[in-house]
C-alpha cells in the first residue's frame, strides 16, 4: 500500500496568556534577539504536563513568572497508508486536535513537515459557515463550497444530500427556522457527501442524538470501505475501536504509542486509570483534594470491579480554610455517557464542614454495570449550591470485568450488545406462554 500521509518531526509551539495588549514590547524584544543571533528569549524548552496546562479559569499566567510558550506537539512522526483508518487518542491537551488542525491547514506547524497525496477534506465541525438567514438549499451550496466542492459537484450530489438529511420539505426555508436536529442532519449530510481521498474527522460524533451518531458512524464505515483514508480523533473509545484499524496515542505532545487500534485503546485506558491528574485545588477556598481512591468491599484499592460488586470512592482532602457545607457530587460515566450519580444537591446529606485533613467516602452498593471502562467524575460546590470549588471532572477510572455468562447472561450477541447501555437493574421478562425469566447482576458467581 502506498503512503498517502507522511508526518515528519512535526512540532507546534503556542504562546500562553493574553495576546494583544503589550505584545508590541515582546515582539520588539524577540526581533532584537533575533538580530543579535540569540535564542528566542520567551521560548521555553520542554513541555508542560497536562495538569499544568492552562485550563480556562484555573491558571493565571503572570508576567515572567510562568513560561510564555508551550509545545503542543514535539517531533511527532508517523505515516498513514492509503485506505487506512487511523484513530488518534490521548488526553485533553495531548495534541490530537493540533495534529488535525495542522493537517487541515487551519494553522501552520512551527517545525517539521507533512506531505500528503490526494485531496483532504476536514470535518472539524459540522455546518461550518452555515448562515442562518439563508435557506437549506443555499446553505448546502455554501457549506459544500467551503468544504472544497465545486458548484457542479454539489449540484450533482444535491438530491442525495437532501435525501440523506431528511429535510426535503423545508429545503427552501431559512435554516434559522430549523430545529437543531434538522440543522445538524443537513450539515452532516453535506459533509458526508464530500468525496475526498483523505477524510479528517474530529469529535463530530459528539453532537446529535444517538441515532444520529450511529448514522454518522455508519457513513464513516462506508467511506472507509471505499478505500479512502480516514484520520479520526475521538474520546469515544468504542467508536475508535470499532472504526479504526490502527491507533496512535499522543501524550504531552509526543507520539507515545502506535499500533493496532484495539491494543492502543486498551493500553490507553490502562494508563489513564493509573495516573489520572486533575485540577485538584482551589486556593481561593483553601481546598486541596489530595487523592481520590477507588476501593472494593474488602477495602483494597482497585481499578477493576465485578458486576454487582460494591464500589467505594474515597476522597482525601485538606481544607486549609474551614469550608461550610460543601456539596459533593460524584458521577459514574460509561463510554456512552453518564450512568448514575451520588449527589448531595439531591439527597441533601451535606457535611457540616470540612476543616483540616480528612476523608469523605461514598459506597456505591452492588454496582449494576456491565463489563466496560468507566470514569468517575467529581465536583465540589460551595454552600450556596452554585459556585464550583472543584470543577466537575474526571478524577478516577475503573473497569468492570467479568464473564457475563457467569451471571446467567446467555445472549448470542452479548458481546456487541453489552456496550451501549451498561446500567442494568434487576428485571424480569414475562413470555407469551406465561413463563418468566429474571435477570440480575447480583447473582454472584460461585
Amino acid at each position, binding site marked *: 500500500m502506498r503512503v498517502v500521509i507522511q508526518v515528519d518531526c512535526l512540532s507546534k509551539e503556542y504562546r500562553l496568556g493574553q495576546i494583544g495588549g503589550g505584545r508590541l514590547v515582546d515582539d520588539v524584544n524577540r526581533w532584537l534577539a533575533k538580530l543579535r543571533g540569540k535564542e528566542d528569549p520567551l521560548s521555553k524548552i520542554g513541555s508542560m504536563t497536562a495538569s499544568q496546562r492552562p485550563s480556562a479559569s484555573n491558571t493565571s499566567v503572570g508576567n515572567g513568572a510562568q513560561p510564555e510558550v508551550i509545545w503542543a506537539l514535539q517531533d511527532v512522526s508517523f505515516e498513514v497508508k492509503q485506505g487506512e483508518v487511523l484513530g488518534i487518542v490521548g488526553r485533553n491537551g495531548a495534541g490530537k486536535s493540533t495534529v488535525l488542525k*495542522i493537517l487541515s491547514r487551519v494553522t501552520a506547524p512551527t517545525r517539521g513537515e507533512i506531505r500528503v497525496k490526494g485531496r483532504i477534506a476536514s470535518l472539524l*465541525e459540522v455546518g*461550518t459557515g452555515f448562515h442562518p438567514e439563508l435557506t437549506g438549499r443555499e446553505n448546502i451550496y*455554501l457549506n459544500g*463550497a467551503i468544504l472544497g466542492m465545486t458548484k457542479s459537484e454539489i449540484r450533482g450530489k444535491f438530491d442525495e444530500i437532501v435525501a440523506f438529511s431528511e429535510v426535503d420539505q423545508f429545503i427552501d426555508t431559512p435554516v434559522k427556522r430549523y430545529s437543531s436536529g434538522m440543522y445538524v442532519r443537513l450539515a452532516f449530510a453535506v459533509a458526508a457527501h464530500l468525496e475526498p481521498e483523505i477524510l479528517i474527522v474530529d469529535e463530530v460524533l459528539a453532537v446529535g442524538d444517538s441515532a444520529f451518531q450511529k448514522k454518522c458512524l455508519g457513513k464513516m464505515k462506508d467511506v472507509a470501505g471505499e478505500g479512502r483514508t480516514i484520520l479520526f480523533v475521538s474520546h469515544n473509545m468504542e467508536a475508535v475501536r470499532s472504526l479504526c484499524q490502527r491507533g496512535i496515542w499522543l501524550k504531552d505532545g509526543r507520539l507515545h504509542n502506535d499500533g493496532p487500534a484495539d491494543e492502543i485503546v486498551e493500553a490507553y485506558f490502562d494508563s489513564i486509570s493509573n495516573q489520572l491528574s486533575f485540577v485538584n485545588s482551589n486556593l481561593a477556598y483553601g481546598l486541596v483534594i489530595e487523592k481520590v481512591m477507588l476501593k472494593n468491599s474488602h477495602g483494597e484499592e482497585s481499578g477493576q470491579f465485578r458486576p454487582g460488586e460494591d464500589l467505594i470512592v474515597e476522597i482525601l482532602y485538606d481544607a486549609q480554610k474551614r469550608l461550610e457545607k460543601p456539596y459533593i457530587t460524584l458521577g459514574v460515566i460509561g463510554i456512552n455517557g453518564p450512568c448514575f450519580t451520588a449527589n448531595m444537591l439531591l439527597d441533601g446529606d451535606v457535611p457540616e464542614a470540612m476543616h483540616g485533613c480528612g476523608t469523605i467516602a461514598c459506597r456505591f452498593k452492588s454496582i449494576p454495570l456491565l463489563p466496560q471502562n468507566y470514569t468517575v467524575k467529581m465536583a465540589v460546590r460551595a454552600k450556596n449550591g452554585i459556585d464550583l470549588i472543584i470543577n466537575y471532572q474526571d478524577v478516577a477510572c475503573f473497569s468492570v470485568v467479568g464473564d457475563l455468562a457467569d451471571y446467567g447472561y446467555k445472549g448470542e450477541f452479548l458481546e456487541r450488545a453489552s456496550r451501549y447501555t451498561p446500567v442494568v437493574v434487576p428485571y424480569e421478562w414475562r413470555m407469551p406462554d406465561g413463563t418468566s425469566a429474571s435477570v440480575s447482576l447480583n447473582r454472584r458467581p460461585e
Partner: protein
Amino acid sequence: MNNPLSGWLHLKRSFVAAFEPQNDDKWTLVIRPKTGWFDLHLADLWRYRDLVMLFVRRDFVSQYKQTVLGPLWFIIQPLLTTLTYTVIFGSIARLSTDGLPKILFYLSGVTAWNYFADCLTKTSDTFAANASIFGKVYFPRLAVPVSIVLSNLIRFAIQLGLFLGFYFYFLARGAAIRPTMALWLMPLLIALMAALGLGTGIIVSSVTTRYRDLRYLVQFGVQLLMYSTPVIYPLSQLSDQYRWIMLSNPMTPVIETFRYAFLGTGTFSWGYLGVSAGVSALVLAGGILLFNHVEKTCMDTV
C-alpha cells in the same frame, strides 16, 4: 529542538525515499512551517472561485433579509447622505461645488467614496469576523475579502444607477454639465478604488490579528480620510498650502477624475492619476503579501 533522533529519522526517511521514487515526488500537498513571502497560492483562489461567488451571494442576500424595504436600502443610504451634505455643506456652510448642481456634486462623491470605504471597512476585520470558519476549515483566506469587494461592486452598480438617474434628469434640464472622454477611464477608476480599499483593508485585518487596537481606529481613520478627499468640496477650492495633503491621498485623483468624467468640471491630470494607480498597486501587492504571510498562523493569535 535539535533532537539527534529526529535528525536521524530524517536521514532514514530520505534514504528510504531514495529507493521508493514513487513516494518521493508526487506529493500533492506539502505543509511546512513557513513558506516564502512570495508563495501566494493564487491558483488556489481560482480553484475556489465558486466559493467566492457563493460568499458574494450570501453577503448580498443576507444583508437585507427581513427588512421591509430590502435592497431599496442600497439607494436610500447614499440618498440620505447626499441630502444631509447638500443641506449642511451646500446650503448652510455654502461650500463651493465648482458650479455644479449640489445634488450631483455630492452624490458623485458619495457614490465613489462609499465603494472605497465599504471595501476598506468590511475587509478590515476579515480574520476577527471569520475566526469561527477559519478555525475549522481551510480555503484560501483571500476568498473572503475578494468576495466582499465583489459584493460591494454590485452595491456600487446600484448606487451608480441612482446617480445616473439624477444625472440624466439634470442633463435633460440643461444644467451646466457635460460628459467627457474620461468616462472611458471608469473601469480603471473602479479598479483603483477596489484595489486601494482591498489593499488597505487586508493590511489592517492582518495587523489586527496581533494588535487589536487598530480595529477601533479604522472607523475614525476612514472618516478622517474622507475629509482629506474631495468628497464634500472640490480640489480647486484649496489653497496650495493644503493642496499637497489632498494630493498625497491616492483617492483624491480618483474622485476628481470620476467627477470630471461625468460632469466635465474638476481637476484631471494623468500625472496624479498615474501616481494614484502606482500607489494602489503597491498597497494591494503589499496587502496580499502581508495577508498571505499572516493567514497561516492567524488562528493562533486571533
